[in-house]
């Protein structure tokens, strides 16, 4: 067993749920590995980590990791997580959501969690589709793409989660892909480590529900697509409009140090207490 696999095994609930639910070619297992390696690298005790997951394929990740976990309801993971963090700020709270989970039904919560800048790590596993419910389009399904509910092609523009998170005020905003696992691990680690809201969008292919309907012959083609088209932010910025078309930038898009909501709250409480005692 390789060293990396050994680490991962320390954090899995071996008696639970294996074999896992993910389809062949799914990127979510890579995210699971990256998450575990990030927590391990940071040396966080398992009992101090709370994973709050939404509903969908990505939400199932919670069932495999040996942290305190909540498999909550569709779209509401961030709100539940905010309650956990405000109630016990010493917990490292990590939210795992899908693209539909975080930007459709939970879109309002995503905006406001970022605005509040509460210290939560939000991992949004973007596979451009509702996988578990059978391949309906999501707010991140690219324009023109086929989905069960867009048989003639998606007419609507896709959400740019990075722009959304940055505009809403998240301290840390990054986009990674499961093809660039080391980079992804670094982003997740940074998001956990830093104060305030950390949003990491993760491009994670779904061959079964998206790839097959959109001219990818095998799952490998989807990873090849990521390799060619998920370009580092620095290169992307130098590209012409024409070259940018069909590509997507990955990297870190916001890195700020504003204190998290829970810290601002504690400071305010201390200040008010001092004033009252004076």
């Amino acid at each position, binding site marked *: 067993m390789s060293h990396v696999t050994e680490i991962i095994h320390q954090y899995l609930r071996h008696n639970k749920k294996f074999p896992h639910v993910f389809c062949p070619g799914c990127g979510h297992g890579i995210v699971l590995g990256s998450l575990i390696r990030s927590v391990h690298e940071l040396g966080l005790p398992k009992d101090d980590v709370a994973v709050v997951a939404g509903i969908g394929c990505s939400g199932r990740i919670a069932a495999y990791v040996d942290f*305190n976990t*909540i498999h909550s*309801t569709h779209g*509401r993971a961030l709100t*539940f997580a905010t*309650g956990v963090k*405000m109630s016990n700020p010493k917990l490292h709270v990590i939210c795992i959501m899908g693209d539909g989970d975080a930007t459709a039904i939970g879109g309002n919560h995503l905006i406001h969690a970022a605005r509040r800048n509460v210290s939560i790590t939000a991992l949004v596993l973007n596979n451009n589709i509702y996988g578990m419910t059978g391949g309906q389009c999501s707010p991140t399904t690219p324009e023109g793409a086929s989905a069960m509910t867009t048989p003639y092609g998606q007419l609507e523009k896709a959400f740019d989660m990075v722009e959304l998170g940055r505009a809403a005020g998240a301290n840390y905003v990054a986009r990674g892909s499961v093809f660039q696992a080391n980079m992804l691990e670094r982003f997740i680690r940074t998001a956990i480590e830093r104060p305030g809201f950390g949003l990491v969008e993760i491009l994670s292919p779904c061959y079964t529900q998206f790839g097959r309907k959109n001219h990818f012959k095998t799952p490998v083609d989807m990873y090849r697509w990521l390799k060619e088209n998920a370009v580092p932010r620095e290169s992307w910025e130098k590209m012409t409009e024409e070259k940018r078309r069909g590509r997507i930038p990955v990297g870190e898009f916001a890195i700020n140090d504003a204190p998290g909501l829970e810290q601002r709250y504690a400071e305010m*409480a201390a200040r008010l207490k001092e004033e009252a005692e004076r």
Partner: protein
Amino acid sequence: MPETSVNILVGGEAGQGLVTIGEFMAKALVRSGYEIHVTQDYMSRVRGGHNTFAIRTGPDPIWAPVEDVDILVALDQETIDLHKSQLTGQGVVIADEAFDVGDLPALSVPFKELAPKPIFRNVAALGVLASTICHDIEDLEQLLTKTFGKKGDEVVEQNLEVLRAAYNWRKEQDFVVECMPPSLVDVGPEGSGRLMMQGNQAIALGALAAGCNFCPFYPMTPSTSIPLALSALGRDLGVVVEQVEDEISAMNMALGASFAGAKAMVATSGGGFALMCEGVSLAGMTETPIVIALIQRPGPATGLPTRTEQADLNLALYAGHGEFPRAILTPGTVEECFELAHKAFDLAERSQSPVFILSDQYLADSYRSVAPFDLNAYPQIEGPLLEADPYYVRHALVPNGVSPRVVPGTSKALVVLDSDEHTPDGHITEDLDVRIRMNNKRLKKAKVLARDMFQPVRYEDEDPERLLVCWGTTLGAAREAARLLTSLGERTGVLHFQQVWPLVPEQFMSALEGAREVVFVEGNATGQLAALIRQQTGFVAHKQVLRYDGLPFTARYIATAVEQSE
């Protein structure tokens, strides 16, 4: 019914300061040991419109509002026009001399002379009003000094001057007033020691007494005064009160906090609660304690935002998909708001279930005079466990269904929750035998709730021919109606439900079967409690008195409806 009470109605446009007059007068009356019963009727707008602040006061307990007005303080002509028909034989109008009072007995006040600036007019009106009910001016002087103290001596002095001028002006008028009998409470130099409190304030205080420390909310009339009261005390008591993006967020955030060990409450009204229903179901599935203060207003949809109704019993009862236990507490008085809010946290924790406090705008905004609560009489509420062994199982199958609840992050215990059906250790499952076992386990907790519920309480005649059955805030009017109806010839009693779910028929069937005529009195159009009792017991109400015009019940409303249907 107390014959000694005086009903003061202060009316005017929003923004004219009528609430200031009302609150000062009410506070002064409470300090002097009088009973008060305030009903606020306001329109859903910031300026203009027609609003009233009614204070019914006297030395004896007062339980409900009345239609009759003894003193009408009119800050605009509309108040006179709208309410003159309510004026009693001994009634008097206090109004600016410029207003047309017709041939009504009136004190036409030269406000321009008494108050140098329009801003002092409400203090002038207060002076005339206090003098009209023979209230000691020193009492009001102390109150004004205390309230305006922060604004500096000059402001205090100006206000006191206007108050005295107005008070003395009334005394010089050739107008005989009948003073209220003295109060029955011993009043020391610091006042009666009683508190002027609204239903919602009492809910907030009861919650705090129970240890509430987390209340995320989205503003919605008439519930917002609960988080406001919590945040006013938050500095000293360490309560997180967070205004969030919507009620969905509020509910789920509260559940997250509760999961992590906080004593969490949400407060909302019907429309906001509709958004919370999904979260109620999550609480049921994950067995997370949550207290929900649902302060009703008339619906459907936006309805009448600032008026009252009791039409969300069914909503609370059936909120959330799937089947799981819950309790619904329905306070009838300000004191019960405190007591039931405290109890709600206890029940929520002991049953790991959602517990509702169902009140409404009428009681939410109604000030009463209450004796200070004896906090020692309220036991400390047990919280979740902080310690467990590493083999801890969150939803262990135990005989009463209530598995020990451990907070994550405080021990080596792994705490796992799932909104999907799960095994006892919290992991998702589609094993259908497990499903049945877990569903049964959760439903078993209903017995824990039923064993420890508030029994319906009988008031007035203990062996009546006619029984008025009511729940929640209708209690006061029903009691006064029972006395009125008894005085009119038929012995009438009251059965009040301060908890409408779960129902334990043995607790009330003999009362229902013992009366010749059973009349359900409810603030809704369809008789929701009557229907629920029929569903649960087969008992059919003989009569129903329903009100859904947005106003609270009065004794006269109930008595007239009962008599008319004879």
